[in-house]
């Protein structure tokens, strides 16, 4: 696909329309937006969402785009925080047909394009899966349309994904399907609060030992992307550097203390 050169321009606030809302897990909702004038995004980028009350009061939060650049529409994943100001509105009140003000796509730094190669090591905590899902989906699309074994879309990729329980795994079915149909994609789950009967996988928060077992070796020089609550991101990044990974090949997206 030839890259079209577009003159650079400022980001402006735009209004998107909610075309679909979907309960992804008990605590999260997926929103699909149609944004007129959207010029596309790269996997890993985010949008800033701004809500305005009738008296003019505004609240703003950032949400990563979960949809692949090749898909139509912009998909956001919102985790409902009980004491949140923005997330309960997005998960409980916002409906199909509503308008949502947003700014983006933002962030050329925390981005992966198939041409960047691999291997890829992705680490997600909770709703931190969103930007990594965009990367995984993008990778799957590129694998389909390129049909070549050269470095890029088929470089081995591994996702380590921490969720509270099986019901809380966002994109569970899609990840299962992608991993089953693509030998170069491996998904490792860890369930931190409860596990289904017969679960043989990891059953604790991501720690040094788990990373030592799951991460590719530093010699493989993976591109690493870590996203989720700030404490998880910082501890994972520190551990990986301690294991010998090049800090320059680790990119982080902290969601803040509560995880978004």
């Amino acid at each position, binding site marked *: 696909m030839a890259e079209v050169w577009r003159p650079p321009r400022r980001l402006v606030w735009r*209004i998107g329309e909610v075309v679909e809302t979907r309960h992804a897990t008990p605590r999260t909702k997926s929103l699909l937006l149609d944004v007129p004038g959207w010029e596309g995004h790269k996997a890993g980028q985010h949008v800033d969402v701004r*809500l*305005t*009350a*009738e*008296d*003019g*009061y505004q*609240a703003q939060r950032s949400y990563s785009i979960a949809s692949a650049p090749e898909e139509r529409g912009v998909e956001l994943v919102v985790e409902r925080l009980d004491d949140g*100001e923005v997330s309960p*509105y997005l998960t409980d*009140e*916002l409906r199909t047909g*509503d*308008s*949502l*003000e947003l700014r983006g796509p933002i962030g050329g730094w925390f981005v992966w394009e198939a041409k960047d190669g691999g291997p890829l090591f992705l680490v997600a905590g909770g709703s931190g899966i969103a930007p990594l899902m965009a990367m995984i989906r993008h990778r799957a699309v590129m694998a389909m349309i390129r049909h070549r074994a050269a470095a890029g879309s088929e470089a081995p990729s591994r996702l380590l994904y921490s969720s509270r329980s099986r019901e809380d795994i966002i994109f569970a079915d899609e990840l299962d399907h992608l991993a089953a149909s693509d030998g170069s994609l491996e998904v490792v789950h860890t369930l931190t609060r409860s596990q289904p009967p017969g679960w043989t996988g990891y059953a604790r928060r991501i720690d040094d030992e788990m990373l030592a077992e799951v991460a590719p070796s530093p010699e493989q020089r993976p591109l690493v992307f870590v996203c989720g609550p700030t404490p998880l991101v910082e501890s994972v990044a520190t551990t990986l550097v301690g294991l010998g990974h090049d800090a320059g090949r680790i990119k982080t997206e902290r969601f803040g203390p509560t995880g978004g």
Partner: protein
Amino acid sequence: MSFFSRGFRGRRRQTDDRLPPGQYLVEGFPVLSAGPTPRTPLEEWDFSVGGEVDEPKRWTWDEFRALPSEEITRDIHCVTKWSKLSTRWEGVSVDTLLEGVQTAAEYMLAFCDGGYTTNLPLEDVTGGRAWIAYSFDGEPLQPEHGGPARLLVPHLYFWKSAKWVRGLRLLTHDEPGFWESLGYHNYGDPWREQRYWGD
């Protein structure tokens, strides 16, 4: 404002007759940060008064806490529009710290751990209008709210109540501080809604 989000109300925002224009009451105590939270150990903490003074002064934490202090109950107003009424503090009056200081200065700059600064006319921190506060709501001031001690100047927007304050530099000229040099009003009177340059 032409666009608004259907059905969005946000957190409870009450107005009150006691509030300056454009403010609303907030539950909780928001934390706005411009940098990492400093964590100076009390053994290393000191407070100094210097600049255009005949004799600079300095107190260690123990010396500072031995100074006469008072309880202060005031409303506070943040430039980002939230306010809290009747907040309770304990601290040392800036008048106490300036006692006996000879100066021709008309201004001062408060400086803090982490590099934050804010400027004020000297007359706005004297005459019982300002304190160095070490306790909020009956508890030691938490680091995220400026502990171990912050400047407290409740009659002006709360960005002037500098967190993690370590001293006052008295000056003969005015020197805009961290936010005053970046678009925020040099004086900051909430009752005249002096939020930004040109207000």
